[in-house]
Every structure is written in structure tokens, then in C-alpha cells.
């Protein structure tokens, strides 16, 4: 067993406490006595419901739209492909609130496309659950696209060649060979997207607004509660931490390489 240098151990301990102490503070300051009561209030219940529905929908939408996009990026050479890839990666780097502003300018009532949406179909996204889903999908889809694109690129193209020589049309090759082989990465990408969507704040509050019972997701509820009722904020935070921990624990095998 190697004995690490002392300075390294000290710095590592410091780093560990950087994460551990705030989380411990959260647990210690929690109003454990009034927890059941706070947990069942309307604020918490509706925030959870909105967060769950919107994040799952955003993850599903990311998969449905993201898989074809990933396929095109991985397999179809066309001029401007690298520009498209950069565009798709942008929400990863952009501050989420900037994404929210951009969405507002495009899909808001006075926006590029939003104006038409309202006048032709009577559809507004602000203040609605679909608006939340749009904002969350915007920030979450890149995770799925990049994960799947990487997996598709790593896929031996000879599987698809073999299927073709056996008589499979291009559609059949996609459904019965490419997709099943890419499925694990699509699942991993969907989980990443879901986790990202669950935690999204800036884009959602900017584009969909902060309406309790309609668009107030868990992160937004925490932020709002902090302004008025610190105990509620702590409880909501704990719920989010618990959910995140559970996701990490049950999926940790994905992150550690298989033997």
C-alpha cells in the first residue's frame, strides 16, 4: 500500500469537506420535527409534480428528437456539420438564463415564431407546463445528443454493412441493428438529460415564469422559498438532494468502467 504525501492528504480532505460540509449543514439545519407537515404542503407537492412531469417529458422529447440528430451528426457528412455540432453543444456552455432569454425571443408572445404560434394556434408557452418542458429540453437535449453521437461513432459500421448484405433496407437496418446497438447509450443519455432537466432553473424561470402550481419547479420553489420561508427552502432542497443521491447510487455502475 502506497503512503501518500501528507500535503496531498490534507488537500484531499479539504476538497472532500468542500462538498461534505454544505450538505451536512443542509441536513443538520433541517426542521426534522415539522418535516412531514412541510412535505405535504401544496407548494412542495405541486413543485414535485411539475418537476417530475416536466423532467420526464423533457427527457423523452430529448430522446425522440435527439436520436435522429445524433445519427445525422455521426453518420451523414454534409457541409456545415461541425457548425451544427457546435450549435448543439452551445446550451452546455451557455448560462441557462441566457438560453431562457433566447427562447423568449424566439417562442415568446412577441417572439420570432411565438407570435405566429399565438395568432395562428392560440398557443402561448409562458406560464404553462409545455413552456417548462421546452426550457428544460433546450438545456438537456445536448447531453443526450453528444452521448448518442459518441456511441454511434464508436459503433462498428460493419454491423450495418452486414445487415445490408443480408437484405435489410436502410430503414430496417436502423430499426433492427443500429437502434438496438445504440440503445444503452440512448438510455444513458436520457438519464443524463433527465437529471439535467430536473435541476434546471435559469432557463425555466426566464422562459416559463415562476407560477406556483403551473411552472414552479422544485429548483424554482427552493429559490422562492428562500425569499420567504427558509424552512420550506431547506426541506425542498433536501428532497432534491435525496432524489439526486438515489439516481447516482442506482446508476453508479454506468459511471465506473465495466471489468
Amino acid at each position, binding site marked *: 500500500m502506497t503512503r501518500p504525501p501528507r500535503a496531498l492528504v490534507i488537500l484531499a480532505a479539504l476538497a472532500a469537506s468542500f462538498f461534505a460540509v454544505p450538505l451536512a449543514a443542509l441536513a443538520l439545519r433541517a426542521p426534522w420535527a415539522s418535516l412531514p407537515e412541510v412535505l405535504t404542503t401544496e407548494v412542495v407537492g405541486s413543485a414535485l409534480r411539475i418537476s417530475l412531469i416536466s423532467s420526464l417529458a423533457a427527457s423523452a422529447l430529448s430522446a425522440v428528437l435527439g436520436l435522429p440528430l445524433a445519427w445525422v451528426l455521426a453518420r451523414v457528412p454534409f457541409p456545415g456539420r461541425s457548425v451544427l455540432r457546435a450549435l448543439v453543444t452551445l446550451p452546455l456552455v451557455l448560462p441557462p438564463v441566457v438560453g431562457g432569454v433566447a427562447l423568449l425571443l424566439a417562442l415568446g408572445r412577441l417572439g420570432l415564431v411565438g407570435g405566429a404560434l399565438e395568432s395562428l394556434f392560440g398557443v402561448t408557452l409562458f406560464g404553462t407546463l409545455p413552456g417548462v418542458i421546452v426550457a428544460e429540453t433546450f438545456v438537456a437535449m445536448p447531453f443526450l445528443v453528444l452521448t448518442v453521437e459518441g456511441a454511434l461513432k464508436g459503433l462498428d459500421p460493419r*454491423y450495418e454493412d*452486414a445487415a445490408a448484405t*443480408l*437484405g435489410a433496407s*436502410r430503414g430496417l437496418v436502423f430499426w*433492427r441493428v443500429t437502434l438496438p446497438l445504440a440503445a444503452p447509450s440512448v438510455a444513458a443519455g436520457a438519464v443524463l438529460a433527465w437529471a439535467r432537466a430536473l435541476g434546471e432553473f435559469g432557463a425555466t424561470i426566464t422562459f416559463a415564469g415562476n407560477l406556483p402550481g403551473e411552472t414552479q419547479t422544485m429548483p424554482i420553489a427552493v429559490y422562492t422559498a428562500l425569499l420567504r420561508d427558509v424552512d420550506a427552502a431547506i426541506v425542498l432542497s433536501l428532497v432534491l438532494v435525496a432524489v439526486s443521491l438515489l439516481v447516482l447510487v442506482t446508476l453508479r455502475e454506468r459511471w465506473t468502467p465495466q471489468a
Partner: protein
Amino acid sequence: MSLEAQVVARAGSLALDVDVRAAAGQTVVLVGPNGAGKTTLLRVLAGLLPLAEGRVTLDDEVLEDPAARRRLPPERRSVGFVFQDYVLFPHLSVLDNVAFGLRARGRAKDEARKQARQWLERMGLAAYAAERPRVLSGGQAQRVALARALATRPRMLLLDEPLAALDAGARAEVRRELKSSLGRFDGVRLVVTHDPVEAMALADRVVVLEDGKVVQEGTPADLSARPRSSYIAELVGLNLWRGQGLGDRVRLDSGGEMLVSHAPMGEIYASVHPRAVALYRSRVEGSPRNVWRGRISGVESDAGRVRVRVEGSIPVVAEVTPAAVAELSLIEGQEIWVSIKATEVSVYPA
């Protein structure tokens, strides 16, 4: 049934320009060094790579003709392809792998599976029907890949290095089985390999590709007797030199002269089997006419025989027994006398 293909194609930096003919019931083996274009040629015939120029016809059906703007995509060709390392679908069972082609071409699931099961039985692998390909040994996977390709009853069978993924122990056995399987297939058969033993064992005809061009064609015997490139010579295990024929001797392009029984005038190839090259510790008086001194540059043993490389005025490879190696202390750097009878030198026009 037969294949006629004039192929001009590009793949990366390789420019392929070959004419290939193959009749049904004949196994044509494509050999050549790495990068010669063998796999590329197979992919073109399968439709996985487009022709730049030329035409591919199978049994009077034009599969591809750029000039006539005709190109059948791979899924519409009646071709079975066995890939190097088999490329079995890992997410499907062995049975569904074999059934894949049938289902892709419209057969109902049950019907396809029934036929697939029959193929597996023929290959002796029925017990593995429900397993995933990853549990199969190399030889078993090869049989499944072959069954998968044959299940759709293609008119042409293409095999890319079918034995390369196997370890040496399995190879001989699987090669024998492959030969008999191929023998039962009555369509056009093309096999690509870089292994000389495989080529000689499986081939009815051999086509040698180098740098995208056909360098020599013929039966294995033709090639063994008269190789026309150092690759082929290496392939069949002969010493080969190019030079000028001068009646009773030949002048080698690489330098030096050898006395021979008879040499036609003009450009020639001269070949000598390593077994006909004798080695002596000291110069010996005798009938062999070609005697010179050289230095051993390498000693390799291979399946009970030892090949000794000798550098000198004429570089040559000699084949001797291990006993001889021990007795004569044949080691690298050792000075040695080489002796070749004139009658052992085969000379033929280039």
C-alpha cells in the same frame, strides 16, 4: 452462374483496377499483401462501395454500371458476405442471427427461424440456437457467420479472411470444414486471405492482387511453379529472382549470375526451392555449379523445418533440418558456403 467484374474504384489512397472472372462451383481465392485492395474488391462486389468505372455482372444481371447509371444497393443483391471476425449481431441470439437475412427479405418470423434452425443443425450448432454470439468459440462463430450468409441462398458468396480470427490450433480443422462447406455451395465463391496455406488449400483458382492490380492468376500449382512477384514467391515459399536469360546462365537484376540448365533469352524469372539450397562450412568440390560464400543473416524455425537466410552476392533462403543447424552451428553472423545445382534452378519468361 458466373461473375464478371471490371472494377475501377477508389478507397482512400487505394486505386483499384482489376478484372475478375469467377465461374460457379469454383472457389477463387484473392491473395495479396496488406493494402492490396482485396477487401476493397469484395466490398465493391457486395455493393458496399461504389464503382468509379467498370461493370459488375452476376449471371447476366448487371449489378452495377456507372456509365449506364445503374447501381443495385447491397440489400437488393443476391450476395452472402462473411466478414473478418464475423460481425455477428451481439444483441440477437445465434438463431435470430442466422434468421436475420430471411426475415429482412420478408419471411415470417416462424418460417425464418425454422429454416435457420435447419442451417444450425447442418453446422452442428443447434444446441447454441438460443445463446448470444459472445459465448461461441472462434470456429463456432465462423460457422454461424457462414450459415447466416448462406441462409438467404445467395448466388455469390464472399468471404473476407474467414480464418484470420482463429488461433493456429483451430485453423486447420476449421479450414477443412470450410472447404467442404464451400464445396457444397453451388454459386460463385470468392475468398480473401493473406495466409498462403489457406490460399493453396481452398483455391481452385488464385488471383494475386498487389497495389490494386492483378499481378498473377492461375491454379495454385501454376503459382507454385512459376511465381511472378516476390510476394507470390514468398507466399509459396520459393526463392525468386528477376533477370536476363543468357542460354546457359542467367544474369540477375540484383547482381550476380547463376548457371542453369536452360534459360530462354530475354527477361526471365529464376526460382529455386529453399530445400534445393545446400549449406557447407567450407568450400566443397562437387557437381553443383553455383557455389558462393555468404553470411547467415537469420535463422527461423517453423513447424519442424528451419529456414536460413543468407546474405551475399546473391541473397537466398535455405531450408534445412534442425539437426543440420545443430551440427553445423548455423547461427546469425556465421560465414557459410551456399551450393545450388544448376538443374534445380527453374527459369521461365517474365
